[in-house]
């Protein structure tokens, strides 16, 4: 672990003004991404993982969203303090994004070559011949066969997997140090998903960039992540290395998530479930937001917001109850 991480998000708060009141979509989230690391933000829909990622680059429409607090340091600069103009310099050049829907994130009326070129010329004053060479190299890098011809194609000529490859090529165009990938393989078929995940891995080995991947799929996370942050109802409930999270989860929510995966249960046995449903972000329960669904719930959980507890080496979970339990067990 490098002493100086690339991205530090500190106590980020993003609220949405809705009919039902102030929805605290992200309510004090902290995480860091080190150089060359793959970090995964994991959680179910509505837990605030996408909102956190979008607010890093100031991509959330404000209003209805408002950044209610926190800091986002990228290489020592606070991105939340930057002017739009300076932020645009960061986007695409130093941090770029890959989205979930390869169908809608490319503009259907331009060729893919043109769209990649746009990214390059926006950030770097290169001439046409050089940018053309770079596009061909990029498309080659992301595994698109015969890039000279493909770059003349429009998005509808490409399959879903190829479009996602083009999106990745666009993200790579200015050799960013961090790529934020929001559910990059969720819309893809299993065999294509494997191709794309492999591509990310190869590119990371070649170029050494960091990847912040946002996903709900724990199976994907197990294969790619170095470090995992688990989110629930707008807060971080657990963080740790991939081994710590999968081998010895500490937060009851993480445990529940892992147990409810069908791959881990024998047939004919009931799957373990987490009862109930995710709370409405505008109407979160007091105390620990997970307490109505938690099997280890105690009186204090209903009133007191839990602190992050340090379980072992950089393995933290927001559950004093489990912390006390583990202490007793190990003693």
């Amino acid at each position, binding site marked *: 672990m490098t002493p100086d991480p690339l991205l530090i998000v500190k106590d980020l708060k993003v609220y949405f003004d*809705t009919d039902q009141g102030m929805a605290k979509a992200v309510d004090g989230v902290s995480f860091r991404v080190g150089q060359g690391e793959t970090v995964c933000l994991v959680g179910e829909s509505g837990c605030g993982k996408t909102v956190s990622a979008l607010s890093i680059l100031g991509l959330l429409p404000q209003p209805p969203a408002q950044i209610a607090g926190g800091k986002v340091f990228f290489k020592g600069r606070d991105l939340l303090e930057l002017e739009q103009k300076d932020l645009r310099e960061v986007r695409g050049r130093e941090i770029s994004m890959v989205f979930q829907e390869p169908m809608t994130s490319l503009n259907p009326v331009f060729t893919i070559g043109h769209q990649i070129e746009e990214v390059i010329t926006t950030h770097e004053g290169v001439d046409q011949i050089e940018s053309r060479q770079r596009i061909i190299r990029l498309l080659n890098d992301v595994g698109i066969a015969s890039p000279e011809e493909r770059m003349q194609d429009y998005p509808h000529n490409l399959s879903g997997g190829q479009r996602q490859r083009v999106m990745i090529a666009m993200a790579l165009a200015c050799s960013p140090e961090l790529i934020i990938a929001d559910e990059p393989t969720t819309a893809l078929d299993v065999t294509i998903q494997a191709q794309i995940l492999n591509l990310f891995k190869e590119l990371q080995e070649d170029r050494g960039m960091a990847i912040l991947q946002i996903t709900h799929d724990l199976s994907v996370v197990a294969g790619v992540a170095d470090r995992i942050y688990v989110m629930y109802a707008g807060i971080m409930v657990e963080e740790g290395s991939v081994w710590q999270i999968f081998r010895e989860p500490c937060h009851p929510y993480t445990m529940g998530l892992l147990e409810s995966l069908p791959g881990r249960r024998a047939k004919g046995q009931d799957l373990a479930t987490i009862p*109930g449903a995710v709370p409405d972000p505008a109407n979160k329960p007091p105390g620990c937001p997970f307490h*109505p669904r938690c099997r280890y719930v105690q009186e204090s959980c209903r009133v007191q917001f839990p602190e992050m507890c340090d379980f072992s080496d950089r393995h933290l979970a927001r559950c004093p109850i489990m912390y006390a339990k583990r202490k007793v067990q190990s003693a």
Partner: protein
Amino acid sequence: MQDSGSEHTLSTEALDLPARQTRLQEFWAQLRKNRLALIGLVIFVLFFIVAVTGMVLTTGTSPQLDSSLVRLQEKLRPPLSRPNLKSLQADEVPVLGIYLLGTDELGRDVFARMLQGAWVSLTVGFVAVGIAVLIGIILGGLSGYYGHSPVRVAQVFIAVLVVLVVTNWSRLSFKTLAVLISITVALAVFLLFSRKKEFGGPLFLLNTQLFSVDMLITGLIDIMLCFPSFFLILTVVALLPASIYNIMIVIGLTSWMGAARFVRAEFLSLREQDFVTAARALGVSDWRIIFRHMVPNAIAPVLVSATIGIAGAILTEAGLSFLGFGVPPPHATWGNILSDGKNYLFDAPWLTIIPGVAILVVVLSFNLFGEGLRDILNPKLRERH
């Protein structure tokens, strides 16, 4: 199963639903946030009240406000002027004791005429759009739901025969009528039994598929849209005896295409929705699927286009009356008040300004309300999960 089921049963507290809101309450809450739409609605309601009271006050053998009473000695009096009591007969004195909106070139009370015109505008708007929406829903629905069904030669023959019989009912001899009707019935019977069987020779020809229902109806819509509709209306109105009902019907018959397109588009997407598939899998009848499942979901955009369509119909009627093709003269409409007033634009500007502003305000209010409805009813613009 019941015992193990209890484990999965959600406790009632897990299902904490928000307070129950009826659709109407929800609609109202949304509307209150949309300032312009609310203003539109208020003006619309005012207009409605004015039109109805206008109708009550200006009709009958001895109306409260007589819109056709001529007082030549009091012509072109400006608004809010007092009548010259000396020159008037007792029954000629305006009921309000004042010419609220002035008088026109024949000394008729513009206020009374405007009231009467409001009712005309209202009925023309609603009846014409009612006809248009009805045709639109039926044709659009047919096209959207049964669009893929082919139209066969025999069906075309039947349609032609029916039209022949109906239009020439009185002119044809009994014998020819009998022959035509029996051919029609024979074709219909043939159609009923021909679905599954294969035929050779001429019978095969009868069973040949010409085009689909969808092609027929969209073709009809496209043809109707090709006509400059205002001139189409002008032509038809010129041929027909001038009456307010003919105008309503003609406007209705020439403005259904928008509604038909909306309904068709909605039906095409609703057909593919899972809840419609589920209803079909449950064995729910076509009729019930169309009217219970699809129409309520397709009606929102039609309602929006109807609201805006009313404004269009009012404008069309005013335009026709202005050109002198509209409602015949003794009857006042905003269009012909405006038309009469244009000759006195500089001497009596209120004669043009009052109906002009009235048309503007009413049409604008309908448009605003329609736009607001679109925002409120469009589920895409609303977050609800």
